[in-house]
């Protein structure tokens, strides 16, 4: 280790952790000045300044009019991190097809650290302005993909998640009660499909189904979302769920047989 690294127990390098806290802080605010970020993170202004300018000099941040935003150096890291995920390659063409056939926003969501991260998304013809982007992070309890994922978790992992999660309210429809959420997850497990009826965002509905491989490992979920006045009736309850299940089935199958399907 070079000089100047401050370290705490377990080999954790605090300065690296701080650098990433700062990057996260910038991401959450889109554009931010030194003073605002220092206040928000409760760090000395000079420290924050040093970090920001260092990260900007390496293209991880961009400085514009005295404020900072994320730089494309991070995109290189993020995009290359995604290409390492096998599920991304297997699911991508199927998510594209799902967006095309439904005309709506289709997404591949995987779990990371108790949250759902959009690994890939495709917009159908009816989508003007996608509300999410690849990399968007969302709570699990209030999204269809998140609930589909939670429904398939083994009991001990679900218990651990619920012990940690605050089940915070986003809309009037958000499930914030643990027992109610457990009952909903049981229904989802039975049905194989999860619904989000304006539980995260007012006016947005979503349908999702979890992806597992043949050894039972949970890989993520595929979802279709759209405005609640377009996702209605049979289309919301039956047609889109059926399309999602077809796609999830194909993704699971191709995951199992990736060595043979890659050769095609």
């Amino acid at each position: 280790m070079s000089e100047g690294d401050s370290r705490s127990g377990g080999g954790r390098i605090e300065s690296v952790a701080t650098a990433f806290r700062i990057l996260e802080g910038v991401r959450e605010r889109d554009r931010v000045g030194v003073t605002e970020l220092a206040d928000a993170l409760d760090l000395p202004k000079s420290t924050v300044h040093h970090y920001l300018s260092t990260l900007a000099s390496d293209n991880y941040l961009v400085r514009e009019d005295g404020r900072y935003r994320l730089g494309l150096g991070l995109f290189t890291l993020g995009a290359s991190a995604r290409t390492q995920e096998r599920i991304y390659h297997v699911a991508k063409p199927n998510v594209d097809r799902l967006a095309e056939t439904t005309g709506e926003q289709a997404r591949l969501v995987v779990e990371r650290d108790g949250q759902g991260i959009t690994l890939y998304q495709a917009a159908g013809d009816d989508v003007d302005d996608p509300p999410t982007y690849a990399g968007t992070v969302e709570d699990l309890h209030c999204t269809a993909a998140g609930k589909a994922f939670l429904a398939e978790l083994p009991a001990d992992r679900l218990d651990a998640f619920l012990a940690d999660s605050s089940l915070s309210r986003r809309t009037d429809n958000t499930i914030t009660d643990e027992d109610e959420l457990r009952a909903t997850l049981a229904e989802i497990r039975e049905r194989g499909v999860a619904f989000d009826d304006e539980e995260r965002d007012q006016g947005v509905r979503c349908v999702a189904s979890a992806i597992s491989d043949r050894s039972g490992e949970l890989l993520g979920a595929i979802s279709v979302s759209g405005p609640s006045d377009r996702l209605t009736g049979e289309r919301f309850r039956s047609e889109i769920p059926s399309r999602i299940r077809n796609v999830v089935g194909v993704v699971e199958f191709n995951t199992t047989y990736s060595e043979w399907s890659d050769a095609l």
Partner: protein
Amino acid sequence: MNDDSPRMDIGLVGLGEHGETHAEFLQELGHTVHAVDLDPRAKERFRSRYDATMYEGLDELFSADMDAAIISTPNKFHETAALKAFDAGLDVLIEKPLAHDLASAERIVEAAAETGSICMCGYFHRFRNRCRLAKAYVESGRLGEVTHVDARFMRRRGVPGRGTWYTSREIAGGGALIDVGCFLVDLVLYFYDWPDLEEVIATARSDFGDRSDYAYLEMYGEDDEAKMYDVEDSVTAFCEFDGGQTAHLEVAWAANAERRHEYNIRGTEAGVSLDVTTPLESVDPAGGQHRDFRLYEVRSDVVDHYVDSELVPPANDPFRDELATFLAAVETGESPDRCTAEQALAVQRVLDSIYEAAGRPRP
């Protein structure tokens, strides 16, 4: 197969139900089975039931010393496995249909021709004594000129592995038509001696797939949840061939109609009705299942009259005879004239035309 046939090393790719049936016969005949699948559940089940050397992948399998390969993977992967087997210099038996789509079937036939490998496709009904005899009656001229074949394969409630790959367009290439309708197309082309298709009118339906009240009376294959279902469960087609001959095909995995697998061959001099209906789980059951194998003629002794004769060939196990024919071909190096890859490609062309005529649904 006689007792002094050499014991061979056979690579078995795809360890589902058809793979298991092949393994059973191969072991009975004293051959060594080398097996591969990528599905951990299928591998485990196979390992517990058969005495076989297990491999992790195709490259590992085909680098081992092998005499031939049998491919019973999901349709979409026939090509991957077959091409690697051809490259390894092996003769190959591929489960029907040859491939999940026409382009893939063409590539298989092309690759087999390039390497000079024997390639058979498992349209096993052609090894059934009844079917061979019907063909012999056609060829002998006893029926006159055959002008129409009415063929049907109907199950009442028999969607295979509803919710597994059989019901996925992307993986199987289609539904009832490509799964069991292919038998009808194969035998009709065989009876007519491989004519080209001129015209076809067809309708494909999906009436049972998404129904929650579906009665699982004759479930075949893996009992999985109904996840994928985007294929047809019945097809009606009318085909006209280049010599003016016609065929009417009725195919159903599920229909509210009597369970039948039969062919009515109509010639200008006589006709044959050939019934090969079997229970779902059996290739060739004990007596009583085949209801009808008759020759319909007219004679004029004393008065004009009808002659309806019952044809009674000995029963045989066509699946086993197909395998024995393949193994004999591997041994002699001579390609059999039955169930060749070229014939299977002709079947695939007709299947493709029927799907085209029925209007391919959006994926």
